[in-house]
């Protein structure tokens, strides 16, 4: 069976995803700048900005589907596409998010490959195996596994977090601690399922007139793109080069999207060094969340990044919290982040050939 090549398949998925995220993210950014709102009823008339915002938002919402499809495609080639797509839809409908999509992409792809080898049919039936049997069987098996086993675990987690947050909000004194927890939970999975659980919770508080928690969420969601940007300039200042050219390119769109509270633009950088950067995110978001809570920057707008500012109380302090949080992130980054593979055109001396990286076949 050989190695599973987990890294290669996620990289293939991401290489297909980058243009998609850029297009959808920028649609949303442009729409938001011109005051676009998500269209709920097309009959009531809408502006161009509304149309852009809605399309961009729908596009980002389909990210789980996209990544699941292309990881499955990378693993299993054409027969992987159909199950990858369907399983991605399942993740989206259940709110399993981007990480759920990654997971179904791998499961679906490997299962298709396994079935490809193990299903034996009479030769007159061979045609229907890739047409129907592989996609159908894979989708049923992985789909039911996701719904009944993974789903239950995620739901249990959701309920646990919800109860915990509710009891903290009611106990008054621990408001800063609540900020810390909300900040961390909003930020560490970059718009994934944990972030969405927090969103449901803070949305509910907002409709009850408690606007600070949602303000924490907006702010904490922007920590990763801003922290990375500040981290880049700090690294230039200290001549401590930790960003590859590829990452610097990705950073530009990550920053623009970050202004609109879209974290997805940072994925290409974060995934290069997921654990270390996520530690920075957690620390930065914790500081940020605590400060937003402490300064009582309540919000009446549920999302939008800087475009939510008109709806936020004490906007100056809110910005300051964001800035401090991002700086904390950036400083942690200097110690933790390592440079990923980089091009060194000027370098004349060659590195030793790493023989372990060679895969030779066909001799």
């Amino acid at each position, binding site marked *: 069976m050989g190695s599973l090549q987990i890294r*290669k398949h996620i990289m293939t998925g991401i290489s297909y995803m980058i243009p998609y995220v850029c297009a959808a993210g920028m649609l949303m950014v442009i729409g938001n700048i011109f005051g676009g709102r998500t269209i709920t009823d097309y009959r009531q008339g809408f502006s161009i900005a509304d149309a852009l915002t809605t399309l961009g938002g729908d596009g980002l919402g389909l990210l789980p589907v996209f990544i699941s499809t292309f990881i499955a495609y*990378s693993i299993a080639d054409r027969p992987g596409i159909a199950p990858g797509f369907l399983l991605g839809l399942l993740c989206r409908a259940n709110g399993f998010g981007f990480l759920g999509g990654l997971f179904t992409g791998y499961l679906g792809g490997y299962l298709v490959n396994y079935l490809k080898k193990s299903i034996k049919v009479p030769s007159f039936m061979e045609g229907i195996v890739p047409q129907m049997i592989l996609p159908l069987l894979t989708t049923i098996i992985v789909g039911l596994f996701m719904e009944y086993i993974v789903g239950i675990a995620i739901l249990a987690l959701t309920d646990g977090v919800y109860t915990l947050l509710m009891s903290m909000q009611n106990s008054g004194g621990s408001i800063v601690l609540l900020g810390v927890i909300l900040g961390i939970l909003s930020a560490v999975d970059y718009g994934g399922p944990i972030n969405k659980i927090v969103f449901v919770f803070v949305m509910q508080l907002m409709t009850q007139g408690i606007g600070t928690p949602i303000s924490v969420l907006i702010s904490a969601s922007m920590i990763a793109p801003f922290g990375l940007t500040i981290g880049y300039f700090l690294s230039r200042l200290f001549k401590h080069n930790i960003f590859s050219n590829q990452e610097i*390119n990705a950073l530009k769109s990550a920053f623009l999207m970050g202004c609109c509270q879209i974290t997805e633009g940072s994925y290409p950088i974060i995934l290069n060094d997921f654990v270390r950067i996520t530690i920075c995110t957690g620390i930065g978001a914790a500081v940020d969340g605590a400060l937003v809570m402490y300064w009582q920057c309540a919000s009446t707008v549920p999302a939008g990044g800087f475009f939510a500012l008109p709806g936020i109380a004490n906007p100056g302090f809110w910005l300051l919290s964001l800035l401090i949080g991002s700086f904390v992130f950036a400083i942690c980054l200097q110690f933790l982040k390592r440079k990923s593979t980089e*091009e060194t055109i000027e370098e004349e001396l*060659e590195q030793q*050939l790493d023989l372990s*990286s*060679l895969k030779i076949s*066909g001799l």
Partner: protein
Amino acid sequence: MNIIGVAACVAGIAHTYIAKKKLILAAEKAGHTIHIETQGTIGIEDKLTDNDIKSADIVILAIDIQIKGKDRFIGKKMVEVPTEVAVHSPTALIKKLQEIVESVEVKK
């Protein structure tokens, strides 16, 4: 020696083309003929022809992702590396390719 290959990196903008350039420079300096196809974000460029593939002594894949048309090379001697290896040590890599080809010829 006749070398062919494919270069493809994750973003498909930079490493793909740097790897290609470095491999070509290193191979030509050592006196080999070389043809590298790129599979970047723009799609396939400098596509290998059937003739290229038939006449090749060895295939070098400098890739970080799954590429299109890998089945074209079935039955060929093939070496696969991440793009960074082709970028960092192209001359050593080409030399290694030559060793592989020669060692097989000696056995024959």
